[in-house]
């Protein structure tokens, strides 16, 4: 235990190096060969398997598991990558308990599904460790495609386009590729630089040029891209963070959870990562959980998530909620922020109001609750910054403040496709972004060939 464990305020170095290492090691350690064989043997190789239907990327799950069972991990990895080139990350971050594993017939049979996510990791890790590349570029087509955003959607799109022989340029606003995989996911879900290793693995196919630090709307316009390239894929994330709408939130110590998570992921030394003694997180999604759990793991004494609706309304999966509880995070429901309490420009607490759902409408009851806090994280949702699309020669149709696309990922603008978090109607999952990027690539390929 380091000396600073009970220091008030926001402080770094609350824990010992050993504690940081332990807290941020792999959440689910990899399966070894025997464990994988035993788990794979549990798969029934279902006909028209429900897990496969439940997977947004439609991975042939029974087949890849059978390939593990027959000691053919590289064949298994190929089955996965055929549908999802970011299968390694998805194996780590997919909410499998609401996707493939929820659909697994063993869930119905015994409440204990096959651990599909961990098996997927076993196979994809094997392929990446062996440096096995399964795809070759088709003969160059001479066609050039621009991709905005090197996150899951952009990378999946780029890889599939490269397979078809097109030349791809990815423009990434941040100094590093990976998107949410690199900046937005809790560190213990993807330790040891996996996100960058995966980007390297994807890019190894060739034909993909990465332009880092280039942001749409700042360094170039959509009009530029559609003029200079044969096709454009927009794969941006959600750069905006919703404000709390609480009085006095512009004081020191009130932070955007996504920024905090990103800083943590980029931190070279976790001991340098400051965290409050008493932390309050406002929100009910995965970001709220990731921020809260990591705050605890960094040594915060009290971490409370306050969500304005009930447990059943939380976007965070049950698994994530349980994880938070197991790490000592307290989740409180039916509380909305009203006022930030501050002293000398630094947060000292938060005043919340109890809420009630009446006739489908949420309203405050008037009763207030005050929690001490020296750090407050905002995690009540992110938004797409429409402004970056400005400057395009034609306006792009939106739907609910995100980009409107058809079933192939085509936007209202000719030559422009979109996928990932920036499009309307999505579920903000990595795996869905991969599916959309991949499918848009196929659509682009058909359009370019036609």
């Amino acid at each position, binding site marked *: 235990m380091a000396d600073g464990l009970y220091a008030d305020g926001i402080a770094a170095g609350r824990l010992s190096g050993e504690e940081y290492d332990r807290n941020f090691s792999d959440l689910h350690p990899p399966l070894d060969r025997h464990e994988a064989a035993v788990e794979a*043997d549990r798969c*029934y190789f*279902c*006909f028209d398997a*429900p897990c496969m239907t439940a997977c947004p990327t439609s991975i042939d799950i029974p087949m890849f598991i059978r390939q593990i069972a027959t000691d053919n991990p590289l064949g298994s990895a190929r089955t996965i990558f055929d549908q999802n080139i970011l299968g390694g990350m998805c194996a780590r971050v997919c909410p499998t308990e609401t996707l493939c594993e929820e659909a697994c017939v063993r869930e*119905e*049979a015994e409440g204990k599904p096959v651990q599909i996510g961990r098996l997927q990791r076993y196979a994809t890790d094997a392929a990446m460790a062996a440096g096995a590349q399964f795809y070759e570029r088709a003969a160059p087509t001479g066609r050039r495609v621009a991709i905005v955003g090197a996150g899951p959607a952009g990378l999946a799109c780029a890889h599939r386009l490269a397979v078809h022989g097109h030349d791809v340029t990815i423009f990434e606003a941040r100094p590093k590729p990976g998107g949410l995989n690199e900046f937005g996911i809790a560190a213990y879900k993807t330790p040891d630089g996996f996100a960058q290793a995966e980007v390297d693995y994807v890019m190894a196919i060739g034909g993909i040029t990465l332009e880092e630090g280039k942001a749409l709307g700042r360094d170039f316009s959509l009009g530029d891209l559609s003029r200079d390239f044969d096709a454009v894929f927009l794969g941006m994330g959600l750069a905006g963070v919703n404000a709390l709408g609480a009085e006095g939130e512009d004081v020191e110590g009130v932070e955007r959870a996504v920024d905090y998570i990103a800083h943590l992921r980029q931190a070279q030394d976790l001991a340098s990562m400051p965290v409050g003694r008493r932390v309050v997180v406002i929100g009910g999604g995965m970001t709220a959980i990731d921020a809260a759990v990591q705050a605890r793991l960094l040594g915060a004494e009290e971490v409370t998530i306050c969500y304005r609706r009930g447990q059943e309304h939380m976007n965070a999966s049950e698994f994530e909620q349980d994880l938070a509880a197991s790490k000592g995070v307290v989740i409180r429901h039916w509380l909305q922020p009203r006022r930030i309490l501050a002293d000398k420009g630094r947060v000292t607490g938060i005043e919340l109001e109890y809420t009630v759902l009446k006739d489908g409408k949420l309203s405050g009851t008037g009763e207030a609750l005050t929690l001490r806090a020296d750090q407050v994280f905002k995690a009540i949702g992110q938004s797409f910054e429409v402004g970056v699309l400005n400057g395009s020669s034609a306006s792009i149709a939106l739907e609910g403040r995100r980009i409107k696309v058809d079933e192939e990922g085509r936007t209202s603008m000719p030559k422009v496709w979109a996928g990932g978090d920036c499009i309307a109607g999505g579920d903000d999952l990595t795996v869905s972004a991969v599916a959309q990027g991949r499918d848009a690539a196929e659509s682009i390929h058909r359009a370019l060939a036609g």
Partner: protein
Amino acid sequence: MADIRSNFVGIKSPNPFWLASAPPTDKAYNVERAFRAGWGGVVWKTLGEEGPPVVNVNGPRYGAIWGADRRLLGLNNIELITDRDLYLNLREIKQVKKNWPDRALVVSLMVPCEEQAWKAILPLVEETEADGIELNFGCPHGMSERGMGSAVGQVPEYVEMVVRWCKQTTRMPVITKLTPNITDVRKPARAAHAGGTDAVSLINTINSITGVDLDSFAPEPTIDGKGSHGGYCGPAVKPIALNMVAEIARDPETAGLPISGIGGVTTWRDAAEFLALGAGTVQVCTAAMTYGFKIVEEMIEGLENWMDAKGHATLDDVIARATPNVTDWQYLNLNYVTKARIDQDQCIKCGRCHIACEDTSHQAITAMVDGKRHFEVIEEECVGCNLCVNVCPVEGCIDMVPLAAGALDRRTDEEVQPSYANWTTHPNNPSRVAAE
């Protein structure tokens, strides 16, 4: 409490669980441990003739195949008969029998196929006061190339001849151990019977190669890059052994000949099945080699509990009870009609029944009904084959339900007949006989 004491050709043991002649019974140390653990009897590992003992390979002697979680399903061995001095074995046998008078101690023997060789060893064994001898006509490796083991067991005339020599020479009960590496196991059983054997024991191990190392391209187990066929045993061989036991039990020529059942006995249930098909005792090897001697506790207790639950007082109430129900295919009732029925409450919707039936059988199970994933038997197509039951991962989810007499078989559009009718009288049978 059920009485599971066994009296097998006059050899008494407190239970019917014997250890087979094999590595676990090669010396006093092991056998003493087995008796302390509760085994009812032991067949001492095969003794050879006087002189320098055989030698074993010094590399791997065993190979295996595994099921889920590396559960051992089949074992293969290339160990030979005892490689210890004959007199050392005899001294130990005598001492062990003295220490454990209530247990069965049978001595397995294998000497060259010459009358003098057998006549020389039998008095030496008699002197130990062992309860009986077992003639090893089964080992399929190593010794068979020297004209012993299965080389004898595969020639009924030799079997009869050696049994006769032994019966003429010794007062001890003679159990003849048969090899399964033969087309019709009834032939050597009949020969042993004709020679005067008191009992047969079967099966010995089955010639096998457990696998091939795909890097060295050598069969397994591999000794310095080469491999040889070895004797296969363990749970995987049980169905083969059950059939061979039943074949002998129901053969009119050998009916009533006592049988010691061997082959993959791992649990009390396996043992009960052997008994039901006609075995008087069972012999165990692979299960003990996998889990140690303690498993006999489960076997004894499980057999007793089952007998108590079913009201079987003694082993004689169980032995050969299933034998009359083993028949030839041509006598099976062709008027017996079953249909698969899937219990939708138990169905977990894996679809294995559907795809097995659809791809490989009779297209008699739906996959989709009214746009929903739903597995249901199409009676018009179901031939009652049982494949769906066998591939279903949920025990009891699919049943084969017999149609009552008078019910309509929707596949044939005919009423189910109340009478028994088999192939021998069927109109499609060119060699049919008139129905009685």
